[in-house]
């Protein structure tokens, strides 16, 4: 689905969709989800949670909270995005707090805190474009690696599979896969040079 930030028709339509959700229209709720799920995952939840399953769960919790509080939403000119992004940030923090080692997890998260989500649709569009560029650079770096390293990294990070599933697909033991992944990440880190 095209980004809601780049689609002028969506921007004009959003207020009507929100009104329909308030009136109980589930199809309108589906529309909002499809419009904002991708940007919320890419710009807010994955940078804070990493694990794809945790990020998708937090995404669902974000929309549940948003739909329940929608009557209190007031558009201040930037549409639904800033409000949704703030909810998503809180849900990401909730995930960390709920984990067994919540205190240590929160400290590390705060120490490595990703930048705050973009406030306006224009900023979000720019951030999504930048994220796409970064993803293309990552894929380029992966293409220069040994095929087995590239496969291990794609399965574990780009497809989001667990280590057991990755080991099964590569037909290796779990411990062997862990070593393979370590070598692959180190190789990638040598090849990866983030832009300043």
């Amino acid at each position: 689905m095209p980004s809601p930030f780049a689609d002028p028709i969506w921007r004009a339509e959003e207020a009507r969709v929100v009104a329909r959700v308030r009136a109980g229209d589930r199809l309108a709720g589906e529309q909002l989800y499809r419009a904002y799920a991708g940007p919320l995952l890419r710009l807010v939840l994955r940078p804070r949670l990493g694990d794809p399953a945790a990020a998708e769960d937090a995404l669902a919790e974000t929309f549940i909270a948003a739909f329940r509080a929608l009557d209190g939403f007031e558009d201040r000119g930037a549409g639904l995005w800033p409000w949704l992004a703030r909810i998503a940030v809180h849900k990401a923090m909730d995930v960390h707090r709920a984990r067994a080692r919540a205190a240590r997890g929160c400290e590390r998260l705060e120490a490595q805190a990703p930048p705050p989500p973009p406030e306006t649709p224009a900023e979000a569009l720019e951030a999504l474009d930048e994220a796409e560029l970064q993803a293309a650079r990552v894929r380029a770096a992966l293409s220069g690696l040994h095929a087995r390293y590239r496969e291990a990294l794609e399965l574990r990070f780009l497809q989001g599979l667990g280590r057991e599933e990755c080991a099964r697909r590569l037909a290796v033991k779990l411990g062997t896969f862990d070593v393979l992944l370590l070598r692959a990440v180190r190789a990638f880190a040598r090849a990866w040079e983030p832009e300043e």
Partner: protein
Amino acid sequence: MSDLRHAPDPDAPPTPEEEAAAAALAGALEPRAPQAVPPELAGALAALRAAAPAAPGQAAPARVLAAVPRPARWRWLLPVGGLATAAAAAALVLLVAPPRPAALPAPGRELLLAQAEAARGSPRPLERAMRGYRREVYAALRTRYGEAP
């Protein structure tokens, strides 16, 4: 950018350092209770995670859609009220509108011929035909409007 010259053989036996580091990395990637991310790999790991396609399921999960607010109970009265209003307006129109006229029988051939005879000076056939026609007209009026008070 190619790392093929420097990459260790993927199938080479791991060193003790690699075994320890591999276990640490697996712990760092554990979703439920992550350990500290190795600092020298933090940037690379963040880049890899961020590169994953942001493509959630095509449809919103059922529990998300279940959170869409239900319409307030009283709202169902709106269409019902609208129907009632429309029905009342229709009834009012029917009450104040003039009634449709009764459908009177058309004069038969015998009556028309009798009229022609009367025009030529012979009124008797017309009188007979009119008696029958009047009966038909009165019957139609009674059907439409009921008996005369």
